[in-house]
Structure formats: C-alpha cells, structure tokens
C-alpha cells in the first residue's frame, strides 16, 4: 500500500528522515503521481512529517520498467 502526495509534499519529504535514521523515498507511480509507502507512514515519528499519518492509503500502481536484463 502507498499514499499519493503532491509535488510540494514530495519536495518537503526528500532528504527528511522519518524515524531518526531512515529517509523518505518518494517515487512516481505508473500515472506519474508521487507516492510514499505504508512503511514510511507507519514508522514516522518525527514531528516535521507527522502529517503523513493523515494520508489515505491506496494500492500501488507500479511503473513499468523496461527489462534490461533479458
């Protein structure tokens, strides 16, 4: 599960730790939406990012990678 965030929210979270050691890693889904993971939300303990706990969870639509390994 993930939560969709705005570009402005993404900019706030980039470079920010959510639990004193682990960093947020916003990525884009198949439709170009910025998302963060349920694990980041659940483990967020920092005041600066506590607002992520109000985000709505949804199913992740992963981007389609070109498989370079074939």
């Amino acid at each position, binding site marked *: 599960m993930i939560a969709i965030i705005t570009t402005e929210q993404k900019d706030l979270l980039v470079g920010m730790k959510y*639990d004193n050691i*682990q960093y947020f*890693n916003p*990525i884009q889904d198949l439709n170009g939406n910025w998302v963060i*993971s349920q*694990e*980041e939300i659940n483990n967020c303990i920092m005041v600066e990012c506590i607002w992520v706990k109000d985000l709505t969870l949804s199913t992740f639509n*992963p981007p389609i990678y070109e498989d*370079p*390994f074939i």
Partner: protein
Amino acid sequence: MISPSNRLFSGGGGGAFDEDAQTFITTASITDSTQQDAVNQLVLDLKSYSIWSKLEAIYPYVGGNATAHSYNLKDTTQFQITWSGGVTHDSNGITGNGTNGYGNTNLVDSTVLSNYISMGVYSRTSLQDVSVEIGASGGGGVGNFILINRNASGMQYFAMDSTGTYRSVTNGFGLSVMNRTTSTDIQSYKNGIETTATKTENAHSTKNIYILARNNNGSTVDFYSQRNLAFAFIGNSLTTTEHANLNTAILDFQTTLSRNV
C-alpha cells in the same frame, strides 16, 4: 601468539570476544547474548578461514533495528548503510517492500576493491520476480548485481559485465553469490555450490552498491526487492574453497540465530 586482529576482549556474559566483534557489538548496541556470541563466532570463523581480510563490507543484519542493521561488521566506521523508503527491520534481518525501500552501502567497488569482485546475499525468501537484491550498474547496464531467482531460468548475475549470466536454481533460499576471478572467468555460488561461466570483463561499477534494489547509474533506483535478507557482503574475489567456507560460516551464524533456511 595472538595477532592484534585476533585479540579477545571480555564480553558482557563473562566470555571473551574478538576485538572486531566487540567493536561491532558495542557500536550496534547488540545486547542479546545469543546475538553477541553469533557475531563473535562469525568473525572468528571468517578469520580462521582467511576470508576476513578479503572482504570490505559485511552486513550481518543482527540487532533487529535500522541502526544496528546499518553497520559494517568489517569496519563500523566505513560503508555504513543509509536506509531509504520502506524497509522493515526485525530479528530476521531486513525486508524490502518491493516499492521504494533500499539501502545505500556507500561502497563503490571501483575505488575499494583491489582486484575482482565477490558479492552476495543470504535470502530467507523464495519467489520468482525481477528484482535486484544487491548491486549497481553504469550506463548500458554494465555492473555488478544479482537477481537471485529471476524466473524459471533461475538466478541471474552480472559480474563486471553488461549481459548477465543465468544459473539454474531450485529456489531462492540461502546464500547467492557472484564472483569474478579473471578477465574472462566468472562464477556463481548457491549455498556454496559453484557454477562457472565465461564472460569478458567490462568494468567495475563506479556507483554506490545498493541493497534491496539496483543503483541505476547513480540517477535512478529501480528493481526494488521484497525479499527478506539476513546477510550481505561485498569483497574481493574468493577461491572456490573460500566460498564453501564462507557458506559454512554464514549458515552457522544463521543457525545460531534460529533464522537459517
């Protein structure tokens, strides 16, 4: 005579720990006596097998939290992992979410390794998917990385090349390793069992090696893994015997921690 690297120090339980083990135990705040003993025995085994000096990064993923799992047993002052995204840390090690979780070892093999590379992970998960457990690549996919159970063809590994090599595996459990010994000779090891192949050397990766994903030329992170890893290492090329001994040491370590698969 005991060499400086093998000096023993008193442990919290009244025993004596190897100096390097003690440094890791202290730095990573490992308080559980079983975990302390497991780490100590792992260090002693790797030194007795003459493997210790050939490895640059050893991540035992013991301690059950992100901080403890970030430290390099070989040298706690170097190549500490930076965690990003959704990675779960518990007594079984680290587990990716397959979406955005990974660790940056901050190790660039082109600047660290004196010769050819050896690299591997111990997985407690077996599933088929296209995800990278450890590695980095440069432009065109040249690099070092492992897909431990890519598809029905098995494990795929890249050892300083751009096309990769398959080996058949029955599952993804246990220790999966890639190794290069010469400009043309590469090997894979699955739970210590070797297969060999010929693949011309291209180049060392010049990018930081990631765990639970691929560092794609320093510009993107992709192929996130959802596997549970209980060990990872990066080092110089090892011999067939050393790989067998490494597998023994890691399996003993996992067994002591009751997380062997």
